[in-house]
């Protein structure tokens, strides 16, 4: 096996040479046209982000970081893949992880098709990021212990395995998770990166408008309102009515709530004629009428030009 410098290795790989090579260091092939690795390769770090790579050879050995972000043609990873950290952000074609995968860190955020876990694999000690992996429906029992676990936007994930250990935070923002196993009962929680309490996460009904208004942190305040529901919040604080009219769904209202050290919260409350549900839709604070707010939502800065033939 020939030892090459990272730059020589880069040229070797781009020229699709067949001779096996070993590299002490990081090979950067980001945004190149590389679609396959033609030789046996050993290196410390390999970055193939944004390449049209379709698969990786089983002989590939990356000791530390393997980065495959936005490799949109990548469909399969080799069985037994072992590395220190594996990043698959935005690999939209990937639907499964390989059997006997072994890594400390996994970042699969924005992999919308990822749905099945290997029967046997090792992902432990590091962090797992599954942000917006909408097809993930469960986590495997072999997972962990982990440092941090990001499940934000995993809408179809409703429960975590009993016994899972996470020493740092768990982000459950916008996921389907409504309770935690005993092993995670004291874990710090986040909601799309904002640290939150267990009450905000799992007992949103108990959040009071006063609690929201007393909260000094603007990000946390927004999460609290999102959790309790804009409509309930608007009702509880007795929001000021700026305007009222009727549309296809019935009566609409434009409501305003003043918040200390933040811009006022202004929203259009309307009924949807199709679903018959009531919504609170936040609009810019300078909106004066319901019609103006509806026009803004449809993309019209000048409300006079917004004349819908029919609203459904």
């Amino acid at each position, binding site marked *: 096996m020939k030892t090459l410098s990272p730059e020589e290795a880069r040229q070797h790989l781009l020229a699709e040479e067949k001779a096996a090579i070993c590299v002490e260091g990081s090979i950067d092939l980001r945004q190149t046209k590389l679609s396959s690795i033609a030789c046996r390769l050993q290196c410390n770090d390999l970055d193939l982000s944004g390449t049209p790579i379709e698969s990786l050879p089983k002989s590939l050995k990356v000791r530390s970081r393997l980065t495959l972000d936005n490799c949109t043609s990548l469909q399969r990873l080799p069985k037994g893949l072992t590395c220190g950290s594996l990043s698959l952000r935005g690999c939209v074609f990937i639907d499964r992880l390989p059997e006997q995968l072994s890594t*400390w860190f996994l970042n699969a955020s924005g992999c919308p098709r990822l749905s099945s876990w290997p029967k046997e694999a090792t992902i432990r*000690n590091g962090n797992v990021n599954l942000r917006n992996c909408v097809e993930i429906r469960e986590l495997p029992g072999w997972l962990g212990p982990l440092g941090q676990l990001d499940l934000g936007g995993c809408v179809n994930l409703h429960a975590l395995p009993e016994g899972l250990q996470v*020493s740092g935070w768990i982000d459950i923002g916008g996921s389907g998770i409504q309770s935690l196993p005993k092993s995670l009962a004291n874990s710090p929680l986040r909601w799309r990166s904002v640290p939150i309490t267990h009450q905000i996460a799992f007992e949103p009904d108990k959040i009071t408008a006063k609690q929201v208004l007393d909260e000094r942190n603007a990000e946390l305040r927004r999460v609290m309102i999102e959790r309790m529901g804009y409509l309930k919040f608007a009702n509880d604080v007795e929001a000021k009515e700026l305007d009222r009219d009727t549309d296809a769904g019935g009566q609409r209202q434009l409501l305003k709530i003043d918040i200390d050290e933040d811009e006022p919260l202004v929203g259009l409350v309307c009924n949807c004629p199709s679903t018959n549900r009531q919504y609170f839709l936040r609009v810019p604070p300078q909106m004066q009428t319901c019609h103006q707010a509806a026009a803004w939502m449809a993309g019209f800065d000048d409300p006079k030009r917004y004349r819908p033939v029919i609203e459904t």
Partner: protein
Amino acid sequence: MDRRELVFMDSTSNKFWRIELNGDSHTVTFGRAGTDGQSKTKTFADADAAKKDYDKLISAKLKKGYVDADSASAATGEDADALPVLAFRSILKEDDVGHNAKTFIGKRIADYDPNKKPTAGGKTVYRFRSDWDSQDCVPNLKHFLETDAAREAVGIVIGNWTGDDTGTDPSEVIELLCQNSKRLAALKAIYLGDIISEECEMSWIQQSDIGPLLKAFPNLELLRTRGGENLKIGHLKHDNLRGLICESGGLRAEVVRQIGRSKFPALEHLELWLGTDEYGGDSSVEDLQPILSGDLFPQLKYLGLRNCDFVDDIAAVIVNSPLIQRIETLDLSLGVLTDEGGRALLSLPTDGTLQHVNLHFNYMTNDVIKELKKLPLKMDLSKPSHMDQDDEWRFVAVGE
């Protein structure tokens, strides 16, 4: 009679503290290492009260960073010449960043004066530095290299090499040292960059490739550098290096990765000041994985990941790592450690080799500090009195 002898070393001092319990009284003796020190005896109402105070004083000293004189980190080996790993300590407290070092590897530092004959026997470590109005660093070093004392020098400190021109890197100094490696036959420790913010902010210091030093000095045991800009370790193999310290306001990910593929089998003390991305510190916890896996440095006793703005992420990962099972000291001080990281540290192993945890300069609340205090580990949870406790803005200790 109970007796305990503790020692302390860092950039400013090398001292001992001994306590002897004798019935209803105890005697404390303390002073600079190598001296007899001074003694104070205190008598109590009864033996129980004396014992209680004895335990309390020892516990307080241990929290301050003292270690047992006969512990592994203070051991000087069979030939008393060997440097204990404790002597590799850089600075302990945030305040010390603002002062030039007074000691190095436990020895007194003196600025080199070409008009005075340097002391023989390697007892003094000489510092070579330029001022804003005098470019003395290199000429003085050249002068020293011609003396007999150079052959006995165990440590060398390079201070500000640039004078008032902050754009210069130390490659000339490095070259000079390397060319004279035969002459510097006893050299075991180099501190390249004893520079304080008054002379040059840490993030302005221009470093360079320190690999040639590792190549030219096969018997080097400690290499300590300050400044992250352009720092590179171009030679990643050394059989005898026991301590590596890279202080910075921001350490490049590539440097962390270089260390992650290095071959330093004798390394006992690894200290990285990871800094913030505003000053070039673009590493992340993933880059530390080769170090934390425990495969890399079988002799490691001290791991310092300091002055780091993502230390919470490190805390969450390090508690599960194989490495934490076999080091003695974990140092996560000077960074932005908050309650999230502090809670993760509650699962540090307490039944292994880990004894000391330095979390000085942290942003944890009293609730979490109280929980951490319950762990049977010697923890420094102190905060500088001037520390800004604003909960919206949090900075590492050195980030200007």
